[in-house]
């Protein structure tokens, strides 16, 4: 599948005034379609259509349908008293990345960081009043300050939380191949200098885009796993600097990708000899909605061949207001679901939770205000279970180096060494620790 398939997506969203069984009848009447069944991965979605027509999905409990009506049908729908609106189905992209305050990177009592923060505020004011520059809309400017502040902490708080010290040398991930399936990588980033990102070690599965990361998400994740021990930023943030990275671009520069390409990427990683596959990607799942069979079968087979697969649990919650269940494909039994914590070892407020017996949370890792490499040779801090996942992948590489064994035995070693944090529904078995 490719970007061209976006054109096959339903063109309009039909919003009813209220959820009702009558909505299905109305759609059948206006669009001349009938119920075909339910999509297995979306139990509450009624699939409607007819021979030769585009598929219509009616989300009964929401009172919303997605369809491709004709102009006449749109007019008809808008005239119905039961219909609130008929709107274009627009392409959405990932939310803006979260750039935390400079203070969250630095030690609270660090006078230089406080000074930098004050300087930044002064410059912000000058730029805002006299030059019309809004720093919040300029992540490149924000980045320069976060990088500057981070240099004061030459050893990432994330690495400290997983039990590493600046002199840690028990394992480095040497000889272990880790595949990062994401938005690609900044091939020219100084922290990957000397890496061979050509030939079979890097591949794009996204039609029309090279492996060069135009998003930054993939570079950030790869950086956490295995960027240079001595970063050009002055901050040590990589868990396993000697791993062999395999970069599979399965998400486009907008951070979106199709199952078909992701599965291709997983199979490619297997053929390239990966011992670990790290996937900071997913899609929302409802409580008690099944995990995806496509990913579970693939992961099950790969696991039996000696590959450990980890995936982000998801950022679907908003604590303390509500929590949402673990995403797909992290909900698959053969894929380890990773939760995120902050530097106070508290669960990331947006992190998805274990809310049913289908999507279990396996483990936690640092995922709030995580410093790492970014696109265009820069650095930044981002939050999300996406950032926790590569920490687990990196630590797993360390264990693999010391104990070449099956994924099940490696995983048991990892679990045996976790630091319990509390509620398993938020933290899984606890905070990962290096060997």
């Amino acid at each position, binding site marked *: 599948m490719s970007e061209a398939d976006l054109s096959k997506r339903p063109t309009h969203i039909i919003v009813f005034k209220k959820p009702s069984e009558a909505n299905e009848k109305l759609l059948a009447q206006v669009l001349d379609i009938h119920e075909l069944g339910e999509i297995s991965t979306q139990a509450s979605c009624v699939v409607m*259509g007819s021979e030769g027509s585009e598929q219509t999905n009616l989300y009964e409990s929401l009172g919303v349908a997605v369809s491709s009506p004709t102009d006449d049908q749109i007019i008809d729908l808008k005239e119905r008293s039961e219909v609130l609106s008929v709107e274009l189905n627009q392409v959405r992209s990932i939310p803006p990345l979260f750039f935390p305050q400079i203070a969250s990177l630095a030690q609270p009592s660090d006078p230089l960081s406080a000074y930098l923060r004050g300087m930044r505020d002064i410059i912000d004011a000058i730029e805002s009043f006299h030059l019309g520059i809004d720093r919040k809309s300029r992540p490149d400017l924000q980045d320069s300050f976060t990088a500057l502040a981070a240099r004061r902490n030459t050893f990432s708080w994330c690495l400290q939380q997983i039990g590493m010290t600046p002199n840690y040398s028990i394992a480095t991930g040497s000889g272990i191949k880790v595949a990062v399936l994401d938005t690609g990588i900044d091939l020219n980033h100084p922290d990957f200098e000397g890496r061979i990102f050509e030939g079979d070690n890097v591949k794009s599965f996204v039609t029309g885009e090279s492996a060069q990361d135009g998003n930054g998400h993939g570079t950030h994740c790869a950086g956490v796993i295995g960027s240079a021990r001595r970063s050009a930023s002055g901050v040590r943030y990589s868990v396993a600097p000697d791993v062999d990275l395999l970069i599979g671009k399965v998400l486009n520069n907008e951070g979106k990708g*199709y199952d*078909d390409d992701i599965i291709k990427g997983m199979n490619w990683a297997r053929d390239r000899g990966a011992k670990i596959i790290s996937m900071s990607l997913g899609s929302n799942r409802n409580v008690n909605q099944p995990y995806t069979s496509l990913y579970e079968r693939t992961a099950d087979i790969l696991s039996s061949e000696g590959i450990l697969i980890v995936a982000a649990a998801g950022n679907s919650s908003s604590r303390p207001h509500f929590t949402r269940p673990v995403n797909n494909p992290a909900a698959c039994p053969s894929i380890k679901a990773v939760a995120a914590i902050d530097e106070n070892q508290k669960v990331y407020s947006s992190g998805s939770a274990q809310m049913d017996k289908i999507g279990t949370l396996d483990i936690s890792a640092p995922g709030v205000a995580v410093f790492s490499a970014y696109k265009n040779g820069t650095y930044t801090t981002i939050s999300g279970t996406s950032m926790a996942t590569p920490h687990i992948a990196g630590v797993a590489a360390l264990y693999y180096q010391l104990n070449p064994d099956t994924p099940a035995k490696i995983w048991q070693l990892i679990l045996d060494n976790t630091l319990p944090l509390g509620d398993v529904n938020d933290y899984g078995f606890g905070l990962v620790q290096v060997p």
Partner: protein
Amino acid sequence: MALVHVTLDKSLIKDTVRRDATVSRIVELTGMANINQQRLHRYGIVSGEVSASKLPEIRDIENVQAVESDETKYAVAS
């Protein structure tokens, strides 16, 4: 027409006779187009394009474990 992924029963991965017969049955009943069988021998998964109206029929075929539409996944950062 939509891209779907059909996961066959795991036992069919090594049972080539039943596996091929099941795939033939899927194609015969649904007219599946642009069939991708590259994942068949290793994972027991066949993909292809079918009309949405055929999804229930595929699900009812013996030895079919699941039928799923090709969906979008997102980078999980906020």
